[in-house]
């Protein structure tokens, strides 16, 4: 189902006209309101008046996570704080998170786009939406929540965890639409099996999964185990949150980007040059309607390609292929973004920890596990077990407090972590995605 038929099936010409008007207006706004953007544009020799066609977008400098870090927390907001009704945050590459803000209108737009996403998956008024995305600073929970309400569906705001109770609620409330990370969907299937609950006896018909990369194999597995259709949703807090793009139930081949609000580009991550249509590269977004925190040519570091082929659903928006990888070393562990540099930061703050460590990611059953291997130097070593175990526990707690994820610390013998020439291999990802 198409929620906003007029906008979602605009002709390419009308869409591009709308995009250009909105782009010009947002460039004017950031140039006048944010000194940092103004300086970057001045340095690049571009003025807002130079943007006369959509292809002029490529004259503008990119925005990166580093720019966000330099302006922590609110430096890139384009409206006064009394217009900002909400903030969210995601992991930064170092200790500080990446902060984003929303005006009342931004929240309204986000709800609309999330409602469109739900509708494209076949959800409607009368559906029971089981929202198991985490509520909090993470955009997943609240983003999906507002969208489901906007659509007129009934939201069950269960958030994450307490899986057995979630399954009980699914049975008792008759949940029809499941929103969570794909790995949590598999976990739900496993716990159902343990509890002797037949997924076929539930009213669930569709799941909309996102916030972490997954494979088509995993998709098939979820569909078979939960007996539902599994669709893909994409978003990132810097651009908005979930609902930047979503797969439609009719086409099931790529995610329609809501191009009336975002302009996507695919670039070569090495050279920064815009790639020819259909080529694989790094996804870059410019938000053209956001008020509090617009981003100009934001480099997502996600790798994908775009397709403009017509789709069975009737939407004219281009589709992005499911994200298959990243240009940086960011890991997504149970939906939480983790940079190896954040773990390194904690490890290096412990006296005696050598700068040799390795992160091992595994998928046990459906859930991701993270282990950090640390070489035991003489400074760390003790002849007492309790001292060494106390050490690993305190590092584990530090990581949990700072990053919100469980990372097992495993002590290993000196010189056992592989030394590489040049760039150290910090991460061994054994998950098959």
């Amino acid at each position, binding site marked *: 189902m198409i929620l906003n038929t007029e906008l979602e099936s605009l002709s390419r010409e009308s869409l591009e006209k709308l995009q250009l008007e909105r782009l010009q207006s947002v460039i004017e706004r950031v140039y006048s309101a944010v000194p940092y953007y103004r300086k970057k544009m001045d340095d690049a020799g571009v003025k807002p008046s130079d943007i006369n066609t959509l292809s002029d977008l490529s004259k503008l400098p990119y925005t990166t996570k580093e720019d966000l870090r330099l302006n922590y927390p609110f430096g890139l907001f384009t409206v006064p704080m009394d217009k900002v009704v909400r903030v969210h945050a995601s992991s930064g590459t170092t200790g500080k998170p990446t902060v984003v803000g929303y005006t009342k209108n931004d929240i309204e737009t986000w709800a609309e786009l999330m409602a469109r996403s739900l509708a494209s998956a076949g959800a409607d008024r009368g559906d029971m939406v089981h929202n198991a995305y985490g509520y909090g600073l993470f955009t997943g929970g609240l983003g999906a929540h507002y969208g489901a309400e906007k659509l007129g569906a009934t939201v069950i705001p269960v958030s994450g965890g307490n899986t057995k109770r979630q399954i009980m609620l699914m049975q008792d409330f008759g949940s029809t639409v499941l929103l969570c990370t794909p790995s949590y969907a598999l976990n739900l299937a496993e716990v159902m099996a343990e509890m002797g609950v037949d997924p076929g006896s539930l009213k669930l018909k569709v799941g909309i999964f996102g916030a972490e990369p997954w494979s088509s194999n995993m998709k098939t597995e979820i569909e078979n185990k939960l007996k539902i259709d599994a669709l893909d949703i994409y978003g990132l807090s810097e651009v908005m949150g979930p609902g930047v793009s979503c797969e439609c139930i009719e086409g099931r081949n790529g995610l329609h980007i809501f191009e009336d609000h975002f302009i996507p580009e695919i670039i070569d991550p090495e050279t920064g040059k815009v790639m020819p249509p259909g080529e694989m590269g790094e996804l870059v977004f410019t938000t053209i309607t956001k008020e509090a925190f617009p981003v100009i040519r934001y480099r997502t570091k996600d790798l994908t390609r775009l397709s403009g082929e017509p789709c069975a659903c009737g939407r004219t928006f281009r589709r992005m292929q499911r994200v298959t990888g990243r240009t940086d070393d960011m890991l997504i562990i149970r939906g939480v973004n983790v940079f190896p540099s954040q773990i390194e930061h904690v490890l290096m703050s412990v006296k005696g920890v050598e700068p040799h460590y390795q992160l091992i990611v595994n998928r046990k059953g459906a859930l991701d596990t993270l282990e950090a291997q640390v070489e035991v130097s003489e400074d760390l070593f*003790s*002849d007492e077990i309790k001292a*060494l175990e106390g050490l690993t526990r305190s590092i584990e707690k530090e990581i949990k407090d700072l990053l919100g994820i469980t990372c097992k610390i495993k002590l*290993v013998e000196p010189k056992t972590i592989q030394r590489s020439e040049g760039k150290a291999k910090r991460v061994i990802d054994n998950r098959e995605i």
Partner: protein
Amino acid sequence: MKVEQISIFLENKSGRLADVTGVLAKAGINIRALTLADTTDFGILRLIVNDTEKAKQVLKDNDFTVGKTEVIAVEVKDDPGGLATILDVIQRENINVEYMYAFLEKHEDKAIIIFRFDDLEKAIAVLNNAGIGILKGEYVYSI
């Protein structure tokens, strides 16, 4: 009064213990006493040898993490109640045993018990007062 003990960090992998003893054998070092404490992921091997410094060096040269700790060796008669007497004296003074291990002397009817206390100096004083004989390091290394 104190005995030097070396401890070695070992991952729980097959062959690691043999690697340690192999290195020591090659260097002509004699092991007097040993104990292995283990967890799921790792173990700590504690050794008393005839040449602590040399053992420490050759193990370090072979990339082991090695520590040196001072422990106490006490001789007790190999009779029922031998150990109980010592522990009774120690606990009355609120001294905590971090770990201990024992071995028998070859030619005598006596056992030697190695103790690691949380308060080594106090333990020595307490044992001395109670008339319990503490062995000299040189004696233990050369048993």
